[in-house]
């Protein structure tokens, strides 16, 4: 077969496939009827081989490009992911995938927690030893002076109560989820950025706690923080663990190529961080509606701790039945 005859005999197939492919540009494969779908599956392999033949015959570059373009568009249509049902996928993810992922990545969660505990204890003790150290950890945010507390514990809650609840809950959710996403994304800096997020936040919290207890307001402080804070901090630590998973996949690739290790790490990490969203939503509602309420402080603390323990119990116990792991499907 001469190049010219090749062009002549095959042009019909290319034109047909090109017509079919261009039909799908807006609506995807759904734009095709049964007959066209059938033609697509029959024409594509032949045209893919034409790409190789065109190279062999060394026909003109423009035509080579054209056949290649048609073949690659058809390839994209045929070898695509099957359409997933999002609601079912999400449901299965939280029933099986997420708890399993959490248990598999426990070393990273431990690592984040250890770093957090060290920093919060450090800043708390340091504030106890020297009260003015609080200003190092929470620069420009304290309105309590050392001589005169100015506001009582009641006032803190009172000020909080004046903010309308729904917007506050929404704002808190949005802000916390953003922090979680950033803790994950900054993991790409070999985990350094994520460590910064943990250290910064734990020192602010430790500094505040130390400062309030210096003024004898420890109970007010914890009954204000704990209802939403315990779950929030837990969720932030899980997000930070996702960032560490991402970062350490770069630093310690093991037997994989560094680029491949990063991709594997990112697949784990992104699911770990996305799974924290419901925790932040729950914590946001608590912070918006329960924290400023007139329920006794001890009750609030018990509520916060209980919800967090329930979350951890879910993560440890759920998804142990023998349904195939969700990860292996994707």
């Amino acid at each position, binding site marked *: 077969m001469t190049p010219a005859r090749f062009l002549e005999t095959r042009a019909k197939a290319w034109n047909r496939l090109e017509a079919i492919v261009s039909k799908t540009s807006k609506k995807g494969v759904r734009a095709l009827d049964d007959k066209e779908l059938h033609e697509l599956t029959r024409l594509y392999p032949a045209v*893919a081989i034409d790409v190789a033949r065109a190279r062999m015959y060394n026909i003109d570059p423009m*035509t080579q490009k054209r056949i*290649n373009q048609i073949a690659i568009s058809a390839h*994209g249509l045929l070898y695509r992911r099957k359409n997933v049902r999002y609601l079912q996928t999400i449901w299965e993810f939280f029933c099986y995938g997420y708890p399993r992922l959490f248990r598999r990545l426990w070393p990273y969660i431990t690592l984040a927690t250890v770093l957090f505990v060290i920093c919060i204890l450090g800043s708390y003790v340091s504030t106890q030893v020297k009260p003015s150290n609080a200003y190092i950890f929470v620069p420009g945010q304290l309105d309590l002076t050392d001589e005169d507390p100015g506001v009582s514990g009641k006032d803190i809650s009172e000020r909080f109560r004046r903010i309308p609840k729904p917007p506050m809950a929404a704002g808190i959710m949005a802000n916390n989820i953003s922090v979680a996403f950033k803790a994950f*994304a900054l993991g790409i800096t070999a985990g350094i950025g994520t460590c910064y997020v943990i250290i910064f936040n734990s020192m602010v919290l430790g500094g505040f706690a130390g400062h309030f207890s210096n003024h004898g307001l420890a109970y007010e402080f914890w009954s204000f923080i704990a209802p939403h804070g315990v779950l929030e901090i837990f969720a932030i630590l899980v997000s930070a663990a996702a960032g560490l998973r991402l970062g350490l996949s770069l630093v310690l690739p093991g037997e994989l190529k560094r680029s491949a290790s990063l*991709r594997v790490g*990112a697949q784990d990490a992104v699911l770990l*961080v996305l799974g924290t969203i419901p925790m932040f939503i729950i914590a946001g509602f608590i912070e918006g509606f329960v924290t400023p309420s007139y329920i006794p402080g001890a009750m609030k603390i018990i509520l916060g701790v209980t919800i967090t323990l329930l979350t951890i119990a879910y993560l440890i116990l759920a998804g142990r039945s023998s349904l195939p792991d969700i990860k292996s499907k994707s």
Partner: protein
Amino acid sequence: MQDFDLIETPENVELERSLAGIGSRFIAGLLDNLLIALMYLILFVLLLVVGINVAGSIGISNAAEMWLLAIIILIAFAIYWGYFVLFEMYTNGQSPGKKYMKIRVVQVEGGGISFNSIAIRNLLRVVDAIGGYAVAGITMFVTKKVQRLGDLAAGTVVISEEVPNYSARYDKKKKILDNEAITSAALEATGLKPEEYRLLHNYWLRRDELNVEAKKQLLPQLIHPILNRTGHSLATESLVVLEEYVEKIMAKARKAEQEATKGTDNLEAEL
């Protein structure tokens, strides 16, 4: 940095993808961010219309307004983190800016982008966006497949889907060919008039740039007048036959020219 990338299909054929350049990706990103800014503007106007002053929201009592404010906060949040995720999910890897620039995100190994990869590349956008996307720019510059950090972690590339213009183009560089001297040896061997030879010769030099359709249109127009004049006839209208006819003429001409120059070479050698 390359401008193309190869993927191997299950048919064992290597297909060539052209990668989107930093420039077109930057413009696409700019368009998307303009669209995001427009959405924020609409939200802000909505706030004003409903009469909520953002700064003075503390102390408002109207329950409906409070819930509306909450919803607006959540929508703003969803736009910030979800704009790219949702568009890339529902349009198979094309945000509106990318659609306008005719570029698309795909998996490195070929095929449509997965949800996980969409989430990874767009959550990492906050890092890529540091310094006005300077981080993304540098990473795209140093990686072979023009990937930003998000693409590296997600295993994605952005490809260009611009369909090249297949019609024959006038090439300025080759214009000189029109004025190339026609040797008398070539004319003698082929029995063509100078203008006829020039036309065929130019066609021959440019045949690689023409696609089948263009050739089908052009060749009969070139050859039929010659055939009419010389009284020859060709068996069919087939492109193959016509091209072979031109090829024969050119081969004849080349041979004649070579012999002619050989003759002069020999002459010089003798002298």
